[in-house]
């Protein structure tokens, strides 16, 4: 078992992260998944396959992936709405794989909010306390606190259908926090909100989490959200963990093609390495690398890692500098995305709106990239 786990770790290329340890929020993991596998229908690929995960107390942890990647199933396994086919879920070091959800010290913020439609805001928020047999006056005090925390004190007597989406969201959050669980699970909680409200709620959530010092596990398919809010995040695809790390780790040092393609905009260039130099299969373009590479690999280069300049001087191209022709200009507002052709090889690059203002379709430009911005992915 241990051997298998090690093999898994090696394959997943999990980096040791020291992000939180320095902030003093470390300690033994509050939650751990060990080789957890779950499939809904026999014969179909599992929704979650052999996932290993450790989450530390007080951490804001995100599960990021496209729909169907198994992130929601992972969350449901933690909450106890599903039980794993194989492997175990540990909460505070205790195996809870067969413990029903109403006996687990976690609470969930549902995507649909799942507020009880026949109960007032106050009743909704006090429900978890009532179910745990907490005395009436203590209940009232904690409901008041929780409502204050989400700035919804004035809405106690309302029914859920009398609230807006953002307000329901806050009540759902208050209900999840009121029982002071060791872990709060959030299943795409901002998915149903419009963009402006979503950005506002991101800040609310982040502040709240910092204030109450509770572990948040946040499921989202929005990479921007995950990068902005998380202390650490796990990228999932087809039921497997692709990469685990801090936002900057995952962003700047993707460990798989999937991660490089899913987060941000990347050029994924198939190439063959010979020593310090890699040449693309089509193109051809020759890149100088920091570390030697032999055999086929993929180069991942963020589109903003290219710097683009006018090709006034054709002479004296430095290493990792290429002449390309503009095929498409896409105005992004805060920048301009350029689709370039460098020989046969197509590239995407980003430049500032100011720099890109003069470019026209068919113009020749010089693009360059620093060797340290090239990530080598061995297939």
């Amino acid at each position, binding site marked *: 078992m241990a051997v298998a786990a090690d093999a898994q770790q090696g394959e997943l290329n999990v980096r040791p992260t020291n992000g939180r340890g320095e902030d003093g929020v470390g300690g033994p993991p509050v939650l751990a998944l060990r080789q957890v596998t779950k499939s809904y229908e026999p014969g179909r690929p599992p929704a979650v396959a052999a996932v290993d995960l450790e989450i530390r107390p007080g951490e804001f942890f995100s599960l990021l992936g496209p729909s169907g990647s198994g992130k929601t199933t992972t969350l449901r396994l933690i*909450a106890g709405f599903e039980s794993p086919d194989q492997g175990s879920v540990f909460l505070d070091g205790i195996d809870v794989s067969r413990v029903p959800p109403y006996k687990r010290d976690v609470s969930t913020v*549902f995507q649909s909010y799942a507020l009880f*439609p026949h109960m007032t805001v106050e009743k909704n928020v006090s429900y978890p306390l009532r179910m745990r047999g907490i005395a009436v006056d203590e209940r009232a005090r904690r409901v008041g606190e929780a409502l204050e925390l989400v700035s919804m004190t004035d809405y106690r007597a309302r029914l859920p259908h009398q609230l807006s989406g953002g307000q329901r969201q806050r009540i759902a959050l208050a209900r999840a926090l009121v029982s002071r669980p060791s872990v709060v699970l959030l299943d795409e909680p901002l998915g149903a909100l419009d963009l402006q409200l979503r950005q506002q709620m991101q800040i609310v959530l982040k502040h709240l989490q910092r204030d109450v010092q509770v572990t948040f596990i946040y499921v989202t398919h929005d990479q921007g959200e995950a990068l902005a809010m998380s202390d650490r995040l796990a990228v999932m695809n087809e039921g497997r963990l692709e990469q685990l790390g801090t936002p900057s780790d995952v962003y700047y040092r993707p460990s798989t093609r999937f991660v490089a393609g899913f987060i941000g905009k990347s050029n994924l260039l198939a190439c063959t390495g010979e020593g310090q130099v890699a040449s693309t299969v089509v193109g051809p373009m020759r890149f100088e690398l920091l570390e030697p590479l032999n055999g086929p690999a993929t180069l991942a280069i963020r589109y903003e890692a290219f710097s683009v300049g006018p090709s006034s001087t054709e002479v004296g191209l430095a290493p990792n500098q290429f002449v390309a022709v503009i095929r498409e200009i896409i105005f992004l507002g805060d920048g301009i995305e350029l689709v370039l052709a460098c020989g046969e090889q197509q590239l995407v690059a980003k430049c500032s709106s100011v720099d890109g203002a003069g470019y026209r379709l068919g113009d020749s430009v010089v693009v360059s990239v620093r060797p340290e911005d090239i990530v080598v992915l061995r297939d």
Partner: protein
Amino acid sequence: MTSVQTVQSPSSASEGTKGQRLGKLRDRAGTIGLRLPLAGWMFLLVLAPLGLLLIYSFWQSDNGLTVRHWNLENYRSVVASKTYRVLLWRTLYTAVCSALLATSVAFPMAYFVSRRLRRHKLTAVLLIIIPLWVSLLLRIFAWKVILGENGFLNSALMDAGIIHQPSTAFLYTRFTVFLTLTYIAIPFVFITSYTAIERVPHSLIEASQDSGANGWRTFTNVVWPLTKQSVAIGFSLALLIAVGDYVTPQLVGGLDGTMLGSVIASQFGLVGNWPLGAAMSCVLLVAVFALLAIVVRAARVRGVLDSEADSGTPPRTWRGTGLGSRVRTGAAWVLFVCPYVVLYLPLFVIVLFSFNNSTAQSLPLAGFTLSWYKSVWSDSGIMEALRQTIEVGVGVVAVGSIVGTYFALVFSRARSRGAALSQAVLTLPVLLPGVVLGLALAITFQVGGIQPGTTAIILGHATFVVPVMMLIIVARLRRLDPSLAQASMDCGAGHIRTFWYVIFPEIRSALIGAALLGFTLSFDEVIVTFFLVGPTPTLPVYIWNQVRFGFTPEVNAVFTIIGLISLMAILAAGRILRSDLFGRRQPA
């Protein structure tokens, strides 16, 4: 084309407004024209019968002839007579008790099916509906065989040594009536409860578990508050069926089990005092609706349940692995299966006696024979009745499909208060106790000069089949994306072609389901039909006459055959309707 029609030119203001006013007027006229048939139906087949019933209740009968002499004599005799007071009290009491028992059996069953069963859900639901396809009268009659002096229950008890002499206590008592009415009501309460439980979003149950509530507390705090309104509707349905039933009391109740419905029916038949019957009906209506108002008020729930689509697997039930919980699970299964046994026992009796070589419907069995099946074909009475029943059924379904779809289209667009009110009025006949509706329609058709017979029965059945079919189609139409019709019109199709090419294909399966249900309702109806039937009886009325005046087991054979055919039909229909009524769309 579209843009020309919809965008009015702002130029030449005075002419424009004039044109607009004309256009508005034309629109209004069109709307009224569209709603005219609806208003006509409501007036002629709902309001007129109720109004005439009320008017008749103030008239007098003179040797079977109605005299238009206004007075309160009927009401005085109803209120003054101790017999009627006792009967009214007994009717309400028995009906409430049976509705309560039916609810307390059917709701847990529905809960079990909805929350515990996975793959065999649909089968479990269909198994409860299927008995409805076999003649209600025969099923009730079968209870006589089960509970009678030489019946199954007595033989079983004697074999077990519990009693030594056959007991007569099981049949011809008020208790028998109560049990039989419960038996009739169970499927109806089951269906209303089941759909309500299925509608509770999974996420709410999970949110409750997540908040620390176990299964029981989740049920009392979340599931029950969100379903009790529908359960109250099921309860009311059971109550109304029981109150309007005169067949059951007469078959299994004996003298002791007589209810008010029987007396009202006899005012129509033997006694011929329609005004007195009308007065009793009015008293019964007022009493029942007062009772229902209390029930509905008590079951009111605050808040609005979003009909959000659930995705993924339903929430799982956590069961312990200990002996105690295993015993509990086992007990739940036994309790779950019991009602099925009760539902199917009468069917078993019918099939059994269709092969029994005796004209008497009682134990012991006399030997195997197929002669009842053979004589079915040569019995012109049965065949004539069957033909008449099918004729009526087809007629009702034809009327129901056209009128029901038409009304559904009108109602699916209208969202005003008036529309809600007229929808309620249209649905009223469904809520009337059978005996009251029957008498009211008989009076109306007599006044309107419609002779008892096929037309009268079709119209009579249509009063309650049309609203049922309409409600099913409205539910389907409401789920339809409104932009479909807009897209079709945008593509240049008019109202009629939009309906034919876009709307109709979408509602087709709902229409088929509604038609099947409508046919079933008509096929088995006896309580209302009895008031409308002409020289040729329908099959249920034929059986009703037989079980009262002399029984031939051929009807057992007929219903064994019909049962088999309808079993196959419902299985086929279940396939068609699966996705529409029960299925959540499976991801591909």
